[in-house]
């Protein structure tokens, strides 16, 4: 189903939700007017400034996988509230709301399929589900995607978009950084390729675990990538942050990414890399 036909609001904050034929949207970055046809052709990026709108796992599946090959798995793994966490609102309430207002199966979708004829295990984070935060469910599903790669002796491809670990599961969330990194260690021992794709934003416990551990790290243009969030840093050091700080292009320059790749070239880039790494 195309994103603009979906009933539920499962699309990132800055993407227009309803866009009938003939209508247009405006790029939040350069204010250029983008018509629907252009928008789709450019895979939800701005043709003028390359701004990449946030899209869902379903769009990424459409973009990356050979048509009809993707199988969505582990759809029934749901967040629990093991600590009875309450802040201004109970965690159980937050979870119920998040499950109701979106189609997301929590903050990580996993499955498998073919990319240009190559079988891969796949995981994609859902930023629209509680900020793509990593709790027990994200860790467990990531672990299963890793296990599938081990069983099927195939590569693992992961798309990240996350504000970090989920506070409402406290230390259990923190330990998911360890769990996800440990399964990547098994892939490494077995010579299986792992490609990490970082999209806007990838910060906190996700960047400081699996997102930064790719054999190859690829980012979409201008994505926010870092450990501490920019607001936290600004508050902490009481200084203005430099232009372009923590953006893909700067992270590439500092040596922590292999490539910054436009969404239109993502499928071909993954295909080419996998040809070399097997």
């Amino acid at each position, binding site marked *: 189903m195309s994103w603009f036909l979906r009933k539920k609001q499962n699309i990132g904050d800055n993407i227009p939700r309803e866009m009938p034929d003939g209508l247009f949207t405006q790029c939040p970055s350069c204010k250029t007017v983008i018509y629907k046809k252009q928008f789709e052709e450019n895979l939800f990026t701005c043709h003028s400034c390359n701004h990449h709108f946030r899209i869902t796992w379903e769009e990424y599946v459409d973009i990356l996988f050979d048509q009809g090959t993707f199988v969505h798995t582990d759809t*029934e793994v749901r*967040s629990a509230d093991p600590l009875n966490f309450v802040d201004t609102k109970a965690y159980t309430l937050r979870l119920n709301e998040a499950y109701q207002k979106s189609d997301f199966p929590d903050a990580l979708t996993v499955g498998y399929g073919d990319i240009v004829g190559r079988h891969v295990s796949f995981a994609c984070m859902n930023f629209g589900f509680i900020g793509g935060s990593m709790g*027990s469910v994200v860790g467990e599903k990531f672990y299963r995607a890793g296990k599938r790669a081990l069983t099927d002796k195939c590569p693992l491809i992961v798309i990240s978009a996350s504000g970090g670990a989920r506070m409402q599961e406290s*230390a259990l969330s*923190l330990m998911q950084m360890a769990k996800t990194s440990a399964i990547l260690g098994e892939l490494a021992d077995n010579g299986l390729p792992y490609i990490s794709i970082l999209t806007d934003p990838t910060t906190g416990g996700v960047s*400081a675990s699996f997102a930064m551990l790719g054999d190859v790290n690829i980012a979409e243009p201008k994505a926010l990538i*870092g450990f*501490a969030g920019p607001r936290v840093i600004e508050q902490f050091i009481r200084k203005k942050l430099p232009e372009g700080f923590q953006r893909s292009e700067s992270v590439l320059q*500092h040596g922590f990414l292999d490539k910054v790749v436009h969404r239109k070239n993502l499928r071909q880039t993954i295909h080419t890399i996998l040809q070399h790494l097997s």
Partner: protein
Amino acid sequence: MATNYTLEFEKPILELEKKISEMRELSKNIDLGEQINELESKVELLRAEIYKNLTRWQRVQVARHPDRPYTLDYCANTFTDFVELHGDRAFGDDPAIVAGFAKLKDKSVAVIGHQKGRDTKSNIYRNFGMPNPEGYRKALRVLRLAEKFNKPVICLLDTPGAYPGIEAEDRGQAQAIAENLLVMSKLTVPIIIVVIGEGASGGALGIGIGDRILMLENAWYSVIAPESCSSILWRSWDFKEQAAESLRLTAPDLSSMGIVDHIVTEPVGGAHRSPQIMFESLSNLLYSEINKLSTLSLDELIAARRKKFYAMGVWNE
């Protein structure tokens, strides 16, 4: 090393102690020995009572007590022959993480830990125990040395978090922590983790993967510090007590989550009240843990470590 720093909830103890010293003054003239003894045992009872019923936030305060033993104190007292190794061989040396080799009774081990300062000057030097990427990379270098020379590793966790700064980000704070997680999950020597004070977030976990996770009775370990949690979820700094409760960050909490294997008892009133007892009990405990782990084959060791972390988490299905 005493700073005579008193925690708010210890004020009643301080009152009694003041009274005792006043009576001591008086007893130069009159014999008050009996009353003094009585009051002294009252103080001990009161302290035991207060420490038995600490709230989570109060434990956070004990974990941050400026007299609490830090990594280098353990290096000097739990271990012998400590030789510190400096630098990540790429950028610099981070004083917020110390690393080196030491003797635990008759065994050589690698020791890695966060290091805070005790006064303003040393805290600035140690960056308040908040590591930069080169700290994690120094740790990684010593982890690899331990592996190369087949020595067990002891990691002591005590940090308010990894440093959130421009340079830290540009030098790859996220990558430095991530790399350690992966390497530690498959390092071919036994690793024992001890949370000795503050275990804040990825900054703590960055040297926190191991076969056994021990936690001192009054330490805390969480995905985020209670103050930061308050500011994000409550949008105010004023809810740190509630945040500490919600985060379930104490040693008994972590034990019930299946994360911590063993709670290390502290002397009544906290590790800083009788550090020598703390140093010795930790030495005995670490020694016996290493002996237990040494009976495992390499394959068993790594498989068990992975299994331990794979089992972490709670979900519905």
